[in-house]
């Protein structure tokens, strides 16, 4: 096997590897969906974020408009402070929008769903979403259900 | 043939004691040391001590290799003759003693100096040790391309010259796998002299060769030595071939130099052990029979 043939084959090998890597990056991973980094930040406070994770999607009308960037805990107010990163193209979020924590599908990844309000003032970088609804906790729901059932029974 | 008389096992005789026995004490030539006056010695080995594991291979060996001569180092198989070559070239370190090549202590040299020294030493390995993925031409050109810094056109001429000297210029395209043993050794020889070293070491060059290749090799070794004023060290146990071209001979056994001298002196050495070795006698100080109990006992008793 002469030297030139070897070099050509190695070149083809590396090229094939690059193509495979490219394919994996583009078609398989979420590269195309990853935000370019341009956007703005909003905060929202919740009593309970449930199992919400960083990088969870933020959607509006079912369309992904951003990601959860950070989840922190306020020691004084005993609340969770969630930082949302919104893509810059979605700049018409009304100031009285509701931020809810929903569960996607049965096997439940939690995400933040934004329910638009009616105001004409839009949120900008650094604003806080005032209206929030915490995640539903199964035990609390069962507790409420039993309690209401018990009440019904006594009436 | 000697046999053990009583039912006790006879231990193999130690050649050293056999030699000493035949002199009633001391070997007359043992006192003789520096055979060449200093300055004419290419390699000087003093008090060399080396062990491999718990086996003592060399126990205080002194040797001088003179310039421009063919020096033979002979001895029974397994006495460490190849090890000696590796000690001289610095591939192994002795436990004690010194090896000086051209006045420099080989084992004190820095890596760079040692490598420089090695470019002036050629070695012919028992198997040729050619690089299997290069053809004959490439193999001989290898040391030239590495160290000479010469342009490719010059290298080509040099390689062809070296191949011509060993008679294999026409085989330059062949791969080592396509060569016979003798041819491989000749190519290895051409490679060993590629950089025109001052000294060549031959590790068992005659082993397993057919008569014609043998004749070719013997002639080549002597001719190369004389034509290029090289110094050669031939390690072998082929007595006839080696003695036919050697200028000086060392016989090593049991980690010591048993005897040394010119081929004539060695052939006429009175010691029984040396005599058995150089004449290839089946029995003598080195016994024919491996130690065993008396014959009668083995046949009369049952079991192994």
């Amino acid at each position: 096997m002469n030297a030139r043939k070897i070099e050509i084959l190695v070149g083809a090998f590396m090229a094939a590897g690059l193509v495979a890597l490219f394919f994996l990056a583009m078609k398989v991973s979420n590269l195309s969906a990853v935000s370019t980094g341009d956007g703005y930040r909003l905060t929202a406070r919740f009593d309970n974020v449930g199992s919400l994770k960083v990088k969870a999607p933020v959607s509006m009308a079912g369309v992904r408009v951003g990601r959860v960037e950070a989840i922190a805990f306020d020691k004084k107010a005993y609340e969770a402070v969630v930082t949302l990163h919104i893509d810059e193209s979605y700049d018409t979020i009304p100031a009285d929008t509701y931020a809810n924590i929903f569960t996607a599908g049965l096997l439940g990844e939690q995400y933040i769903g934004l329910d638009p309000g009616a105001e004409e003032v839009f949120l900008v970088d650094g604003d806080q979403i005032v209206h929030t609804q915490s995640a539903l906790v199964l035990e609390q729901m069962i507790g409420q259900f039993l309690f209401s059932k018990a009440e019904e029974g006594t009436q | 043939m000697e046999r053990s008389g009583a039912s006790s096992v006879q231990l193999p005789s130690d050649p050293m004691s056999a030699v000493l026995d035949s002199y009633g004490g001391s070997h007359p030539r043992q006192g003789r040391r520096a055979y060449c006056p200093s300055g004419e010695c290419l390699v000087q080995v003093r008090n060399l001590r080396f062990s491999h594991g718990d086996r003592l291979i060399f126990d205080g060996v002194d040797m001088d290799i003179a310039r421009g001569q063919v020096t033979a180092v002979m001895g029974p198989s397994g006495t460490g003759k190849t090890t000696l070559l590796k000690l001289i070239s610095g591939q192994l370190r002795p436990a004690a003693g010194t090896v000086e090549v051209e006045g420099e202590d080989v084992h004190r040299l820095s890596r760079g100096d040692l490598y420089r020294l090695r470019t002036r030493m050629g070695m012919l390995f028992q198997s040729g040790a050619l690089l299997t993925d290069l053809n004959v031409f490439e193999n001989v050109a290898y040391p030239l391309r590495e160290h000479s810094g010469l342009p490719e056109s010059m290298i080509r001429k040099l390689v062809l010259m070296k191949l011509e000297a060993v008679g294999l210029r026409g085989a330059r395209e062949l791969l080592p796998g396509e060569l016979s043993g003798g041819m491989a050794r000749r190519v290895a020889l051409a490679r060993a002299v590629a950089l025109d070293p001052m000294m060549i070491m031959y590790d068992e060059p005659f082993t397993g060769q057919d008569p014609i290749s043998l004749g070719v090799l013997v002639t080549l070794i002597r001719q190369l030595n004389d034509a290029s004023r090289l110094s050669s060290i031939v390690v072998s146990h082929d007595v006839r071939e080696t003695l036919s071209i050697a200028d000086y001979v060392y016989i090593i056994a049991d980690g010591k130099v048993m005897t040394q001298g010119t081929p004539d002196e060695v052939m006429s050495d009175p010691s029984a052990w040396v005599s058995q070795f150089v004449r290839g006698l089946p029995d003598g100080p080195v016994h024919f029979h491996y130690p065993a109990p008396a014959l009668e006992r083995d046949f009369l008793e049952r079991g192994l």
Partner: protein
Amino acid sequence: MLDFLARLGRGGLGSLERLGRGHLLLISMLAGLPALVARPRLLVVQVFNVGVLSVLIVTVSGLFVGMVLALQGFYILSRFGAAESLGVMVAASLVRELGPVVAALLVAGRAGSALTAEIGLMKATEQLSGLEMMAVDPVKRILTPRLFGGFVAMPVLVALFSAVGVVGGYFVGVGLLGVDDGAFWSQMQAKIDLHEDLVNGVIKSLVFGFVVTWIALFQGYDATPTSAGVSRATTRTVVHSSLAVLGLDFVLTALMYGE
């Protein structure tokens, strides 16, 4: 009893000795990098030996692994009504774990054993000594190019394995089993993260490539220079590098995906 303990101790010391020798060899091999940069041709030849010659076994295996994943995954996911997630399952398994690990095991078997045999035979036929006598450092000239050849070739092979596996999974899942084409890709694209999954997979492949090649070269270099010695060394290469890959995979996975 005492004899057993003595042998155990000797064996332990022997293993420590070998471990030390292996690391010393590694340092010598790495020291040969500047010399290698001056002669890139040597590296190219080694990438060919380790990489190109392994392409067939890696891609065929990748194809079959991807297809089997799709087959098995479909039956399990269908039970939960989650057949649409087949794409995610196949891709995640391949990119995160099976790609790096299985490709590394295959390379250890094919290229690793070939390297060990080659170096062991060079040692047995005194070619390494011959190079030393020609004042060429055999470690820098013979071993270093092979170490870096394996290091460069492995990520390429892993990428090929994973890519071919996903394609194989696609043909079985969508083509044979009727999973929705759009769901297959879109779910996959939503859930497989570039950094978390792909980059981690590449890091794993680099680590495995390095370790597998190192073990193969050391076993060859350290082999007893006889034919029995070389065959023992070849076996040891496959066993040791397979165990090393699996062990390192656990450590790396814990580091990368742990909380």
